[in-house]
Structure formats: C-alpha cells, structure tokens
C-alpha cells in the first residue's frame, strides 16, 4: 500500500553526496601531501645549502689561516698571526655544525672524518712551516717541503669539500626527482575533479529544493485531508485508531474520544483502555478479535456494545487492517462506527416487519378460511335448490317459483364473489415462480378459456408478436383473461367487439412518472377495444378492489377483476394504466420489465 509519497530522489541524492564528499576528500589529501612534499623539499634544499655554507666557511677559515701564516712568515709581524689563531676555533665550530648536519648520512660522516684528518694534517703542516721559518730554527729545505706539502694538503681538502658538496647536490637532485614523480596529478586534473564535485553538489542541491517543494505540496494536501477526515468522522459518526505494534503506541482520532464520551486527548490510550469501555457481554468477543487481527491481518466487522461514562449504551461496529510500512514496522489501523441509531432503527424495523408479516398471514388465512368456509353452506343452498325438481315447482305458487329463482341468482352471484375473492388473495399468497415464458402462448391459452364468449359476441382479436419474458405464467394468463374478458363484457350493444393487442419495447426514461427508472427497458403491451368505454375520471379507481362503474343488473361483476390485474402487474414489478373515450373504446396498457 502506497500511503506515503515516495521520494525517489533521496537515494540518488545520497549517492551524489557521497561521491562529491569522496572527491573533495581525495583532493584535499592530495593537496596536503603536496604541501608536505614541498615542505620536505625546502628542508632538503636548506640542508644542502647549510652544509655548503659550512663547508665554505671551513674552507675560508683554512684559507685565512694560510694567508695569515704567509703574512707572518714574510713580515715577521705577529699581527698577521691573529687570523691563524682564530681560524682553529672557526674550523672547530664549522666542523661541529657539519657533524650535526650530516648525522643522518653515514657516507658524509665518513667524508667529514677524512676532511677532519686532512685539516688536522694541514694545521700540523702550518705549525711546521712556522717552526722552520723562525729565524732561530730556520731550515730552508724543510720549510720548502712543508710549504709544498701544505699546498698538496690544501688541494686535497678542497677536493674533499667539493666531493661532499657534490654528494649533497646529488642528494638534492634525487629528492627533487622523487618529488616531481610523486606530484603526478596535474593542476588541470585537480581543477576538473573539483568542478565535478561542485556540479554534483549543485545537482544535489537542486534535487533537494525540488523535493522540498514537493514535500510542501504533499504537506498541504495532508493537512487538507486530515481536516476533511476529522470533519467527516464527526458527521459520519465514525473514528479511526492506529496501534503501532512495535512501540505499543496507540493513537485515537479526536472523534474516537468523542464517541467514547470524552473530550479529544482526554486520556492516553493503552491496549487495555478500549476494553474497559466494552460492555461486559462483548468483552470476550472484542478481545478475541483483537488477537485475531494480528494473525489474520484483517478484521471482519465486529459488532459490540460500548458503555459510556454516563452509563449510556452505544452500539459499535469495528473493522481493521494490519499494515506493514516501508520501514517494516507493523501498524494496526482500525475504524469504529457508532451504529446506535441504525441499530435501534433496525430493531424497530424488524419489529414492524414481523408485525406486518403476522397481520399479513392472519389476513391471508382469514381470507382463505372465510372464502373456503363460506363456500360450504353456499354450495349446499345451491344444491338443495337444484334438487327442487320441475314437478315440485308445478305445485308451487308463482311467487314461490320467483323466490326460488331469486335465491338461485343471489347464490350464483355469491359464488362468483367468493371465487374472485379467492383468486385475488391467491395472486398474493401463492408462491411466485418466475419462468421464462412465451407470452404469445399464454395469450392463446387465455383466448382458449374465453372461446365461448368470443364466439357468442363474434369478437375479433388482432395480435402482434409478444415477447418472451420471465413471468409467473398462470398469473399472466389470468391477466390476459381478465383484460380480454373485460373488453368483451363491456362491448357496445350490436357492435362486434374488436380487440387489438400490440407490443413494443420502450425505455423507462420515456415514462419517468410511471416506471421504475432502475430498469432500463420495458415491454409496453396495449389492449385496445371498441367497447363502450368509461369516463376517464375513473381511470385510477377502476383498479381498486370492489370498485364498479356499472350496476350489477346491467353487467354482472364483482369489481375484483381489474384489481387482480393490477395485483398481477405489481407482482411483476410492472405498471398498468387505463384510458378511455366513452362510446368509442378503452385502452389498457401494461408495462412489464424486460
């Protein structure tokens, strides 16, 4: 069930976000590494540069010493010896620094060690030069030797310094090469990656704002529909509740509280709360159905009584359904209907119905018994009268013979009345079995019943084709007999009766006042005669039981025939109407549903 609007974008949105975040993380990590490398490189450059400087300082200190020594040897002025004396300290300071700087490099340490030895040798050579140049100890050959040896040593020292510088330079070059190799990402690539991430974020932003708009629309709709539901609950006397089975939280709609006789949110509903309202008679049923709804996921209507705080009893009808939402939590949804009014009305109706049924039965049995039991004495009167033979009549007076004739006529009329009454009550009480029948055959049967009168009156009956319909056959036959019989009976004196029977299919919408509009098609069957007709003002009353338009001496009849017709047509959910022009003829029209 889709009762929550589905925001499809949320998943893709997440993906976009994650990708963008990863790209940014990647970019920043590269930038960080870049920085670190740069830092490292500058340190290496600085390192190399520092070693270079210290080596140069070392060199210059030695050179200073050399120059000072030379000056002294030439001039014998002790002032020239000052740089020579300081140079030892300078060399030592530089040397200590160099030792520190090259601490991580064993090869340089080795070189440094070599350099140190050379420098010491050089200073020993200085000492010797000074010694042999002193006029007291002057030795030209030894001085020359030492001067020359110092020269060679100086060359060696320079060579050693150059080598150390070269090693550092190479080291720097290697470092730069590695750095270049590591900084593999070009700036263009980085920028395009950044742009991709940016566009992803923009895309996500657009999606979010779109979803937000949709949410707003849904929110508005929700607000309207919840308002509508609350309103309709009040009007329709029903309420809804939700029961979250996972959290056991129960929510009542406002009207639920009202139906239970409280103000909305007057208490916090719990599982047992509702059962407290249920009438003791129904507690078990309701509790059972509450359990069943969980296993069956659906609750057929449960009917029970509720006792309100003011001890009023209300009748409830409840149905429910178990829903599993998108997160998989189970929610029980229920609707309660307050059917008290309907229930009471129903009870009243049932009572009235059974009363009606009872009185109907009484009427039917009264009718049957009356007609039946009335027949017995009547039949005997007739039979006894019929036993008065012609010979007996001969000895009677004229008036006695007349009286006997009148007894016979009255008894006969009584018989017709009883027979018709019986027929009328039977059209109502006997079982109504609808059988698909050919109305043409039923009409032929009816004509067969009336053959004698038709022949006697020399009547002509013109018939068009009648339909096949689901009817109560003997009743329709009776209907035809009565209608044709009626036309034959009320024919004009000295004019042969002409009866035309026609059938058409019509739409009920063409006769909105007469016909049941729920049935689309009807068969309209008309019986038109050229009889004496009747005053149209009686066209309704002629169908009423015992209603007669003529004196019984002129036209013997009971006033039941057309009432039977009406009853039969009613039994078929049809309609019968009559119309007439006096002295020209009548039209009886019956409508039977298709």
């Amino acid at each position: 069930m889709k009762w929550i609007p589905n925001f499809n974008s949320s998943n893709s949105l997440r993906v976009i976000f994650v990708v963008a975040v990863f790209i940014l993380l990647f970019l920043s990590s590269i930038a960080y590494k870049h920085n670190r490398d740069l830092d490292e490189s500058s340190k290496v450059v600085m390192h190399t540069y520092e070693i270079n400087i210290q080596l140069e300082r070392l060199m210059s200190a030695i050179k200073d010493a050399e120059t000072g020594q030379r000056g002294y040897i030439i001039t014998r002025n002790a002032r020239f010896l000052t740089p020579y004396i300081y140079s030892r300290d300078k060399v030592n300071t530089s040397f200590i620094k160099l030792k520190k700087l090259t601490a991580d490099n064993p090869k340089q340490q080795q070189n440094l060690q070599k350099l140190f030895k050379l420098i010491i040798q050089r200073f020993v050579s200085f000492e010797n030069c000074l010694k042999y140049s002193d006029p007291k100890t002057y030795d030209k050959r030894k001085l020359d030797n030492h001067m020359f040896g110092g020269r060679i040593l100086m060359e060696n020292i320079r060579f050693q310094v150059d080598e150390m510088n070269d090693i550092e330079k190479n080291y720097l070059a290697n470092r730069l090469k590695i750095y270049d190799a590591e900084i593999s990402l070009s700036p263009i690539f980085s920028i395009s990656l950044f742009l991709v991430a940016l566009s992803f974020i923009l895309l996500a932003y657009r999606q979010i704002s779109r979803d937000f708009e949709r949410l707003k629309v849904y929110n508005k709709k929700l607000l309207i529909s919840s308002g509508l539901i609350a309103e309709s609950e009040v009007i329709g006397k029903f309420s809804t509740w939700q029961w979250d089975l996972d959290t056991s939280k129960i929510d009542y709609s406002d009207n639920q509280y009202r139906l239970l006789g409280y103000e909305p949110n007057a208490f916090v509903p719990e599982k047992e709360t509702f059962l407290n309202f249920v009438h003791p008679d129904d507690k078990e049923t309701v509790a059972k159905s509450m359990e069943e709804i969980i296993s069956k996921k659906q609750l057929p209507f449960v009917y029970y009584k509720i006792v309100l705080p003011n001890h009023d009893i209300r009748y409830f009808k409840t149905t429910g359904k178990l829903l599993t939402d998108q997160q998989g939590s189970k929610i029980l949804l229920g609707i309660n209907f307050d059917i008290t009014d309907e229930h009471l009305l129903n009870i009243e109706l049932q009572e009235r119905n059974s009363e009606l049924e009872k009185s109907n039965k009484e009427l039917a049995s009264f009718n049957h018994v009356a007609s039946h039991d009335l027949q017995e004495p009547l039949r005997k009167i007739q039979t006894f009268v019929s036993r008065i033979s012609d010979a007996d009549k001969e000895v009677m007076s004229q008036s006695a013979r007349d009286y006997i004739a009148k007894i016979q006529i009255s008894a006969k009329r009584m018989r017709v009345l009883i027979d018709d009454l019986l027929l009328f009550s039977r059209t109502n009480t006997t079982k109504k079995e609808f059988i698909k029948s050919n109305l043409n055959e039923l009409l032929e049967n009816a004509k067969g019943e009336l053959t004698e009168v038709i022949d006697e009156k020399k009547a002509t009956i013109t018939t068009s084709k009648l339909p096949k319909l689901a009817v109560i056959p003997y009743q329709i036959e009776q209907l035809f007999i009565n209608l044709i019989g009626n036309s034959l009976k009320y024919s004009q004196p000295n004019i042969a009766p002409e009866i035309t029977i026609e059938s058409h299919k019509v739409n009920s919408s063409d006769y909105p006042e007469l016909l049941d509009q729920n049935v689309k098609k009807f068969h309209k069957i008309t019986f038109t005669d050229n009889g004496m007709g009747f005053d149209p003002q009686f066209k309704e009353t002629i169908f009423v039981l015992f209603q007669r338009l003529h004196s019984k001496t002129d036209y013997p009849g009971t006033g039941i025939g057309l009432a039977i017709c009406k009853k039969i047509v009613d039994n078929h959910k049809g309609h019968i109407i009559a119309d007439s022009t006096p002295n020209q003829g009548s039209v009886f029209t019956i409508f039977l549903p298709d």
Partner: protein
Amino acid sequence: MQNNALYILLADDDEDDRLFFNDAFEEIKIQTKVDFVHDGMQLMEHLMDTNNKLPDILFLDLNMPKKTGKECLIEIKKTEHLKNIIIAIYSTSSSEEDIEDTFIQGANIYIKKPSDFNTLKKIINEVVTVNWHYHTSGLNRDNFLLRLK
C-alpha cells in the same frame, strides 16, 4: 349380484354431502354399493380391518376432523395392500396447492364438489364408468382435475 356391484366408499364428515352423494348414486342406477365413514380415523380403521372388503373407488374429502384427507392419502399410499385403491379427492377447495399436493401424493382424480345436483350425478357417472387402468396410465396434471365438458 352383490359381488358384481361396484363398491364405493365415501369419507366425508358432512351429513348433507353424504346425503347428496347417496341420492345421486341411487338415481344414476348403476349397480353400486355405497358405504360412508365420517372422518379420517374411521376411514383408516375401516380400511385396516381385514374383515372389510376394500372399496373399488374411495371418494376422499380433504377437510375432515381427527385426520385430514391428505394425511389419510399419504397413509394409504404407504400401506402395501391399500396403495392400489383408486382414490378420488372430493373437496370444496379448488386451490392449486391442494390439487398439486394430492396429485404428488398419488391420488387418481380431483373432484371439486359441485353446487348443482345434476352436475354431481354427471360427475359420479363419469368417475364410476371411466376405465381406471387406462386413465391412470395417462395421468398428468392437466387431466387430474375433473372437468365436465
């Protein structure tokens, strides 16, 4: 003589009807012996008593005290040695229901009590002279109710 006479039994509680019935038989001058019982109980006792001869035709009124004609009809048709008796229902009622019921229960003919003595004679004459074997074999709902032409 007595042996050849048709034996007729009428079960009817109404004294006048029994009188008409008897008079009619006397007037049609067919050799018959007519007996009467006054209610359903008496009828069944009469039929069950093996000393009594079984009737050739039983005229059975439906509306009788103690035991109705329909109950008698069902009992007779259930009893082996009685079920072949020709049964003519002889009733005031002409309701479809009664006609239908008695037809289904196996009565042979349905006579509505006439209101004219001459008609009664004609009916009795018709019933007594009909070839019952022939009639019964072709029995259907249309010819079950006796109609005089």
